[in-house]
């Protein structure tokens, strides 16, 4: 069997067009079909989102009473830190990345006209390794493991279980390795399985964004793994010297959740919006190449493996870091401009996926603007007194804002923007993935809930950043420079309510999936192409049969269903 062969015996169950029969337990556990793998990622990824947000709510409730053991009384600083760090690792590794890889595993082969994902068995291995790894990681963190603790000498410290900690490190390494393997399968599909006539510049925008994002992940995540390896080796010693010391482990790994690297995990949000919006408007995307360049620029500006404060404490003052943090706004603005330009020429048809994708891009824009403020302290460092109290205050604030919870606000906006974009993709491609449309009104409700939740949760962190609440975890210094303790506590309460709304937003989506797909209450009429799609995935049945396409597609532009081959695309 070569690496291109698609189906094993257990996958034959889906050979009938339009059937959602995944072949029972054998189809779940023995599958190497990209469609089943994609669905499994989506199911587990949404569950991971729930866990991440529950942990986030606990963290926010603790911060309601700052500077002391909070209302939930975690009991020890390491238990709080375990919850805090697990909320971040699960949001990225248990929710955002697997959802993106799952959506890409399902949709990318269809968009590029391929019969399957490249290396389908490796993709299956990647999924199961990821699923087992993340479960081990969560269990070990609850068993007093985790990725370090903030201050082992603190009166609140309780000590960690070294064996559980070691297993936490190994399991998260397994998770990242598996996600990298899954990413490589998607990338190889994009590059080597395109049909005749489809150049890289004629890729649908979601596939293009996955190519850019996946490329950045493949370059950056191994560097993170190397940090983890150094920590693990040092942790093995009887007395960890530096890298494996519990108070240093997270410090070495935290750059993945910081600017500019965090933006690499939201690049596909642009691709999803770029595929969804023109279809909703019934017109081709304007300035297609410009949109592709904007996505590429965002990829280039989000490569952050160099920005490791643990090894380079001065990185936040270095020009490259500051310039990247400020410029990240530009590609998002350009992309948004392209969407607006297109929407002016079409007939707007309101749908859940349209609203969700626009909300996702706007959330990303807010994150980029917050990022620009957060990093611009060194850029204004040389400015002398302006003799304008408001401007002087702004400059002074920009100098001090680094290290506040504004960094958390950026991370939260980016990752939640990613989740919203992915949900937009789920609503858009649900007929293709499940054979049923998800409920439009529920989708709009979910979009509004997520928007409200992000505004309260992320917005409160932005305001608390302005109020100088520090980003240190469970450390009195986090609250030393706070302007107004009561205000910070109030906005942390608001943030906790926002996190509850975010949880409700994802819960609504899971409920809709359960009712529309699992209970088969959704609309399955015109499931093949209910939106009048422009790209190849809509040229086959929903869900697609074995091998995806009856005949190998031939294309010569990026919108093959709008402009069939040999008729050419529109003028750029």
């Amino acid at each position: 069997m070569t690496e291109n062969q698609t189906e094993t015996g257990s996958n034959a169950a889906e050979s009938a067009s339009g059937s959602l029969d995944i072949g029972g337990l054998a189809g779940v556990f023995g599958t190497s079909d990209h469609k089943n793998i994609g669905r499994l990622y989506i199911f587990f990824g949404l569950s991971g989102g729930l866990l991440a947000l529950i942990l986030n709510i606990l963290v926010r409730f603790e911060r309601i009473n700052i500077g002391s053991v909070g209302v939930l009384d975690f009991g020890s600083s390491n238990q709080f830190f375990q919850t805090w760090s697990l909320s971040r690792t699960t949001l990225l590794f248990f929710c955002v990345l697997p959802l993106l890889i799952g959506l890409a595993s399902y949709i990318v082969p269809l968009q590029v006209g391929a019969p399957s994902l490249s290396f389908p068995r490796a993709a299956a291995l990647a999924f199961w390794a990821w699923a087992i790894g993340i479960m081990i990681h969560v269990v070990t963190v609850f068993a007093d493991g985790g990725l370090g603790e903030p201050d082992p000498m603190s009166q609140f410290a309780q000590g960690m279980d070294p064996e559980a900690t070691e297993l936490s490190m190994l399991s998260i390494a397994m998770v990242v390795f598996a996600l990298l393997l899954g990413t490589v399968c998607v990338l190889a599909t994009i590059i080597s399985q395109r049909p005749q006539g489809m150049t890289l510049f004629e890729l649908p925008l979601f596939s293009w964004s996955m190519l850019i994002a996946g490329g950045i992940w493949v370059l950056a995540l191994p560097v993170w793994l190397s940090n983890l390896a150094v920590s693990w080796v040092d942790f093995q010693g009887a007395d960890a010297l530096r890298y494996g010391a519990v108070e240093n482990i997270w410090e070495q790994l935290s750059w993945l959740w910081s600017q500019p690297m965090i933006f690499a995990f939201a690049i596909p949000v642009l691709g999803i919006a770029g595929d969804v919006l023109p279809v909703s408007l019934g017109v081709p995307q304007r300035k297609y190449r410009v949109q592709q360049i904007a996505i590429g620029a965002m990829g280039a500006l989000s490569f952050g493996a160099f920005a490791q404060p643990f090894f380079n404490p001065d990185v936040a003052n270095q020009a490259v870091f500051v310039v990247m943090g400020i410029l990240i706004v530009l590609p998002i603005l350009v992309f948004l401009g392209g969407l607006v330009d297109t929407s002016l020429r079409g007939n707007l048809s309101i749908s859940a996926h349209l609203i969700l994708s626009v909300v996702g891009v706007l959330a990303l824009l807010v994150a980029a603007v917050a990022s620009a403020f957060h990093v611009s302290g060194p850029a204004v460092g040389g400015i002398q007194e302006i003799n304008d109290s408001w401007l002087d205050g702004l400059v002074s604030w920009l100098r001090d804002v680094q290290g506040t919870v504004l960094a958390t606000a950026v991370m939260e906006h980016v990752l939640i923007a990613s989740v919203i974009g992915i949900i937009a993709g789920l609503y858009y491609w649900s007929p293709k993935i499940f054979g049923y449309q998800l409920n439009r009104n529920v989708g709009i409700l979910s979009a509004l809930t997520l928007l409200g939740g992000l505004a309260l949760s992320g917005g409160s962190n932005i305001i608390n950043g302005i109020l100088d609440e520090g980003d240190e975890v469970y450390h009195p210094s986090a609250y030393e420079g706070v302007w107004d303790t009561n205000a910070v506590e109030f906005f942390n309460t608001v943030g906790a309510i926002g996190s509850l709304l975010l949880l409700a937003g994802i819960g609504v989506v899971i409920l809709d999936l359960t009712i529309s797909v699992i209970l088969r209450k959704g609309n399955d009429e015109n499931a093949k192409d209910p939106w009048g799609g422009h790209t190849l995935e809509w040229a086959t049945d929903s869900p697609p049969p074995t091998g995806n396409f009856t005949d190998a597609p031939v294309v010569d532009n990026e919108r093959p269903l709008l402009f069939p081959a040999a008729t050419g695309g529109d003028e750029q």
Partner: protein
Amino acid sequence: MNMATTNLPAAPPARSRNLLVSVGFGIAAVLMYFGGLFGVYLRERSQVRSVGGSWIPDKAHIELTPPGMIIWTLLISVAVMQWAVYSIKRDDRQHALLAVGTTLAMGAMVLVQHGWQLSQMNLVADEGPTTAATLIYTIVGSYMVAFIIGMIFVALMGFRALAGQYSSRQTDGIVAASLYWYSLVFIYFIIWIAVFIAK
């Protein structure tokens, strides 16, 4: 129009380069992994030296003979691995397999030399653990893992060639294995310079 021309069958679709593309991404990931380790190593070493500290413990024995032997073994293995590629492109399976076998034998020698060096370095035993020891063991240990993966990859592609899967019409497996092997040699070259020569 000439009928003979119109009746020609369509050209076969371009061959998928899945394996080569994936190995390209894999090599990029491995290079970035070691790039991260080298960055940390060089940064930490310069920090220690900038305050007048000694990076390598005084009683450690980092001799240059084993790494010198390893780098020469690896450089020769590059030529041997390229011989495998050259042979498979000419349907000379016998010499291709001979070259793959020789490469694997050289790989085994490299592992033995690594093991011997690690047992001799005495980085930890006398003076207790140091940050230098942590980083050197991480780099060399990671390299040995990547190297063993490379040997398995070369062996697997050799078995596939033995089974007739690779020939002048389809050389991807052997070429992909050779590219990964060359990247390993490149990485060791950096280890040789940065860790052992400039210790």
